């Protein structure tokens, strides 16, 4: 029973008495003449969350979502409908609505068969049931105590734990029937430190495609508590960030959100097919300094952004986006790959059955260089050392991107100096990586906290990078 396709049948099809021939009929309905491709995406998702605040377990929530999305594609046209009722008549009505973009009343014929997948980037387990409820709330209580223990100035602590059991079954008009069971867990700690009139926040957390035991390994959860407290306390001491263009050293790991915003979105296939990305038509050109290699890799075991197969049933892969500074490839879903005459790259993702898939990132990171991070910091006379970030945003057409630091220090004469308040950094995507002048040997991936939004759809992603020295980034502080 540990095979995803059996779990999916058991979870989704069996309770409503759906059989394979019903799926064949749905695909037949969708595959009218003139339809190039069609798929049916079944999903059953269970989410449980707990919140500890003021030292007590205050809230818990359990959510069940299930349904099926029907898509019919003809050239550049897509018809889409979905149903949260999995009874066959409701599904058939959705299929008929979706395929209405093509004229004509006759049906196509599709016979699905199971696509074999031996991939196990994560176990097909149910993380909601991977720990007893009593143990979950006990874990949060320990995290809360650990954060408060750090310093009497830590006044508020909110910790949360989320576990998601997501089962998908994808039937495509090419006859492939594939399934994936996707566990996802997340723990977050957010604190407020107070010192006289000053208050600052700090937050930390992590997650993975794993059981909840993940947070108990190596004291991971307690590390998040200590890190959140450290950040808030550090920010209590922070003074005004500088304003202007300067050399910036970005720390390893989560600062890789730079890559996600500055180049990642601009290299998604849809924007490049349409020619609306600042990177459109630039394959083979230099877009980064020599030594810069950036990949999108959905195949890292257990990572938040990883998938055995994407939401169109395509196995994920390692896609080289930039190789030694040269633009090599885009991230594709099936529709955009077909229209651009290339192969899909396993980047077709959707928030749920109620959303259309589109090219999305998985885990996006820059490979390590050979510099000692200490040497990189020592090389800067005057600049900014930014090690933690909040979110970012990009305008893929103009190429302008921002990302906001939540922990940063001045660098003076090659040494890390006083902490400065969070500031937004702004730059130009096609140009910023050409200004990378040193690449550290300390590649790290983030702790598993990333969520990416595009056209109203959120999906979990990962980022990573080694320590980087970047020349001439604009830092949006208020200080001199």
């Amino acid at each position: 029973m540990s095979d995803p396709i059996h779990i999916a049948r058991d979870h989704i099809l069996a309770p409503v008495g759906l059989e394979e021939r019903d799926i064949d009929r749905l695909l037949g309905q969708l595959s009218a003449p003139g339809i190039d491709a069609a798929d049916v995406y079944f999903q059953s998702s269970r989410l449980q969350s707990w919140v500890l605040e003021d030292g007590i377990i205050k809230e818990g929530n359990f959510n069940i979502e299930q349904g099926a999305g029907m898509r019919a594609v003809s050239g550049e046209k897509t018809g889409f409908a979905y149903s949260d009722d999995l009874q066959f008549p409701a599904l058939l009505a959705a299929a008929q609505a979706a395929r209405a973009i093509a004229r004509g009343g006759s049906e196509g014929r599709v016979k699905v068969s199971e696509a074999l997948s031996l991939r196990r980037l994560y176990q097909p387990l149910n993380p909601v049931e991977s720990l007893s409820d009593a143990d979950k709330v006990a874990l949060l209580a320990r995290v809360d105590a650990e954060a408060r223990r750090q310093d009497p100035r830590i006044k508020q602590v909110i910790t949360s734990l989320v576990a998601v059991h997501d089962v998908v079954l994808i039937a495509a008009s090419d006859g492939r029937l594939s399934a994936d069971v996707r566990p996802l867990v997340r723990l977050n700690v957010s604190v407020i430190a107070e010192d006289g009139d000053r208050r600052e926040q700090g937050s930390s957390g992590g997650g993975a495609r794993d059981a909840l035991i993940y947070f108990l390994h190596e004291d991971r959860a307690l590390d998040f508590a200590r890190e959140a407290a450290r950040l808030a306390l550090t920010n209590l001491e922070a003074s005004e960030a500088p304003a202007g263009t300067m050399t910036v050293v970005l720390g390893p790991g989560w600062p890789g959100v730079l890559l996600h915003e500055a180049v990642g979105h601009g290299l998604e296939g849809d924007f490049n097919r349409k020619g609306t990305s600042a990177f459109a038509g630039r394959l083979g050109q230099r877009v980064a300094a020599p030594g810069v290699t950036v990949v999108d890799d959905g195949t890292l075991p257990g990572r938040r952004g990883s998938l055995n197969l994407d939401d169109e049933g395509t196995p994920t892969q390692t896609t080289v986006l930039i190789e030694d500074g040269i633009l090599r490839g885009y991230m594709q879903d099936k529709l955009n790959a077909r229209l651009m005459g290339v192969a899909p790259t396993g980047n077709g993702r959707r928030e749920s059955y109620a959303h259309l898939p589109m090219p999305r990132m998985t885990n996006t990171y820059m490979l390590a260089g050979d510099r000692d991070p200490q040497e990189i910091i020592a090389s800067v006379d005057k600049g900014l050392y930014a090690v933690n970030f909040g979110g970012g945003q990009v305008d893929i057409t103009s190429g302008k991107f921002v990302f906001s630091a939540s922990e940063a220090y001045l660098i003076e004469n090659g040494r890390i100096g006083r902490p400065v308040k969070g500031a937004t950094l702004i730059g130009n995507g096609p140009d910023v990586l050409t200004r990378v002048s040193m690449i550290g040997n300390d590649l790290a991936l983030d702790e598993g906290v990333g969520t990416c939004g595009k056209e109203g759809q959120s999906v979990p992603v990962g980022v990573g990078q080694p320590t980087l020295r970047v020349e001439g980034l604009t830092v949006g502080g208020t200080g001199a």
Partner: protein
Amino acid sequence: MTESAPDDTAERLARLEQIVADLLAEAKQRGATAAEAAASSDAGLEASVRLGEVETVEHTRNNGLGITVYFGNRKGSASTSDLSPAAVRDTVAAACTIATHTQEDPCAGLAPPERMAECIPDLDLYHPWGISVEDAIALAIECEDAARDADPRIVNSEGATVSTHAGIHVYGNSHGFVGGYPSSRHGLSCAVVGQEGESMQRDYWWSSARSPADLDPAAEVGRRAGERTVARLGARRLSTRQVPVLFAPQLAAGLLRSLTSAISGASLYRRASFLLDRLGERLFPEFVRIHEEPHLPRGLGSAPFDGDGVATAAKDLVSAGVLRTYLLDAYSACRLGMETTGNAGGVRNLRVQMGPLDRAGMLAALGTGLFVTELMGHGTNPVTGDYSRGAAGFWVDDGQLQYPVEEITIAGNLKEMYAGLLAVGNDYDFPGSTQTGSWLIERMTIAGE
């Protein structure tokens, strides 16, 4: 689903009311001392075109129900997209299981019974649009065509979308309160790409309304998207400096969101607000009045009762520059030792009293400085009010637009920005639940070249 079907609204409302009643009965059966439940159902159509051709046609249909049970001062919640009787039972059971692990919270519970909305005024929120797929596509094409025709430098398009959604929401609780009403929302939007030399820019415009009759003409929405896009071409950077800044009305609404978030109960009792203990104090100059009007007919933010079942009511958040109220739900009110303000779920239809100056007058008042028309990123710190965001807009000299600017940041602190608000224009120009003109802020730091 959007063809002119017979109106079965009353039937569907009754069905959702029955689901809410079933949820509450099931909770009582399982020993809950109190409970609250909600159910909703909506359907819609979104048609998108790009470069004159259909791109996507989406039929949307969303159902949901949720229950929160209280066992004394312990609570548990559960929700699902499945409205079947079996789902009702399973969902209540799941919420009750959760409640066996949560702990006593003296403030957990329903709002006081005497605060429940007594009558549900008809706010004229339901105007379903029986537009066919073909007509929606034609309208989207009209919108996009107008954008592409606005200027020869418009070379590409992200497309135009026509959307229509209509649904019903019902909330009830074990005080015996049940309230439900249908509502609709329709939209038109367009985004195009302009090019000049090597530089590409995109911009958009939209219209949104409860009734299709209140949508702006498609060609008008498209033309504005096109004009906004070409106005950005040839943008330059600025050097680092301190200048006065004029926020376009839709961005001023964002400064207002930072205010409403900072005076919301959840931020205050967590001490996660830059406006702690400021009730009754002056935040803005004396001319500033900010008013909430939740019963505005056809208002995009209108609602007859809040997320606790408490009647919503019009009030000043700020008058004569002074903060007059927090925005509280039942829980945060209890935590702060105050009374709910009927703001469970947020604030509904804000109105900032507009001043005498139109856009030209506001630019003249700005004199030499930055007119911001777009902001990027999340650089607002809700605890300290520190503000640092990516910006694009226009450099203004002597009240005249000089050239577009981009790839700069603007920074300050929201407390100082509010206190340094010099004028609010009467140039309100965007659809949404917040109505404000542009805001002229005395001084901010621009970081650039």
